[in-house]
């Protein structure tokens, strides 16, 4: 491992793709790009390409799934067969089912589910191309798609990961760094309320390293949140500028 991991951060302190340890991948977000869904968003974070669509709230189907005191939030995280190097079977895998649950639980605290009892909201996350950190990027877009659908929310949810690569704490790991590195800490945050909705850790970190990683990931969440805000507003600001000339 030591031989391989030496290559992850070079002598200048730069990573495989030329980033500094505390730098995000180049990120582009767009809101409202699907005509048939009630809300939608798209994110490109490095080589990640993820599409999210939201339907609802609508009458819960099948009916026995309706909850009498709140909305049922349903989430599907799915990777396209062409999203990874080796063709992935389109059937939901163990990992995808788990991520669907993780994403749902990260979004649930941000939505006023109690407003519309007996209904359901469906969130579909489609990973078109994956390069590490898809769960965080998925939460980021899914939250924007919900806002675009007009679902009442406490706050947007911004997510970002930090990890340990070559003994250095680094932000927003990509696939190779995730696999060769020694730890990964994904975090989802509601920035205005300063509340964490997702915190996971994969790998081994000392207490001090963990704290550093969490702080770095939170910083990353704030940067992602700024991009989210810009993307959500851009949809309406552009119309305004064109109309008013």
């Amino acid at each position, binding site marked *: 491992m030591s031989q391989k991991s030496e290559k992850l951060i070079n002598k200048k302190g730069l990573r495989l793709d030329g980033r500094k340890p505390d730098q995000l991948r180049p990120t582009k977000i767009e809101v409202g790009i699907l005509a048939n869904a009630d*809300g939608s968003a798209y994110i490109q974070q490095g080589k990640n390409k993820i599409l999210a669509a939201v339907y609802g709230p609508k009458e819960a189907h099948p009916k026995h799934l309706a909850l009498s005191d709140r909305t049922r939030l349903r989430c599907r995280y799915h990777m396209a067969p062409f999203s990874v190097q080796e063709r992935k079977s389109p059937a939901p895998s163990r990992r995808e089912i788990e991520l669907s649950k993780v994403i749902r639980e990260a979004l649930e605290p941000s939505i006023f589910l109690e407003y519309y009892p007996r209904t359901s909201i469906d969130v579909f996350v489609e990973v078109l191309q994956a390069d590490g950190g898809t769960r965080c990027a998925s939460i980021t877009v899914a939250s924007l798609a919900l806002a675009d659908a007009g679902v009442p929310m406490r706050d947007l949810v911004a997510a970002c990961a930090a990890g340990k690569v070559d003994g250095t704490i680094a932000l927003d790991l990509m696939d190779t760094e995730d696999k060769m590195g020694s730890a990964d800490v994904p975090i989802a945050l509601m920035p205005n309320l300063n509340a964490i909705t997702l915190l996971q850790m994969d790998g081994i970190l000392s207490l001090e390293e963990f704290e550093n990683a969490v702080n770095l990931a939170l910083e990353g969440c704030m940067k992602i949140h700024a991009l989210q805000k810009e993307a959500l507003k851009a949809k309406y600001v552009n*119309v305004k500028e064109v109309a008013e000339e």
Partner: protein
Amino acid sequence: MPTFFERRELVIPGDLLAEGEYTAGENTYMEDKKIYASRIGVIEYTDKKVSVVALRAFYIPRIGDTVIGTVTDVGFSGWTVDINAPYLAMLRASDVLNRPFKPQRNELSTVLSVGDLVIAKIVAYDRAHNPQLTVGEPGLGRITRGQTVKVTPTKIPRIIGRKGSMISMIKQETGCHITLGHNGVILITGKKLEDEQLAVMAIHKIEEESHTSGLTDRITQMIKKSQPKTKKKEES
């Protein structure tokens, strides 16, 4: 007790709008004496109330609202109507037929069948029960002609305009009869197809640019510009 945004500024969910002695209006919520936005929209202040006029929202039934819906199912004692809301509405047979009816004979589909459009009023609705409709008032009932347009329900007030200025202008300029459903469905009936299409175009433009200023003038201009074309067609 400061406020953090100018009037009519664009806000998104989670934005801190005001702190202290304010009350939370529509599409906002209060936590620890701080008011945050819960939807994307433009901010409005009225006295001490902070509210957000949502740019994207869905229709939530309210008692007394006039809605336009589609019949989706004929049951034994009434119809199920899709009113463009998270809940399906019920229209009872006893409300439509002013005479006793026998469910065994299945005569309901002769009165209203699946796919029919109705203008109706909401008479009952709460968290535990689906909305209940009535057609027993003048102007309500089955729609026989015209076309419908769907818009975001929160934009209905913008289409009406200040004291009805926008809607009466469109009615006058296009000569169409327009019925607004609170659920965001609009019925347009005109003498000619061209008139109806012009009204549809105007409504779509309002929906797209509802958050911009000087809209009524632009819509008037747009209608006037496209009208000479339709008049020329008549002559030829």
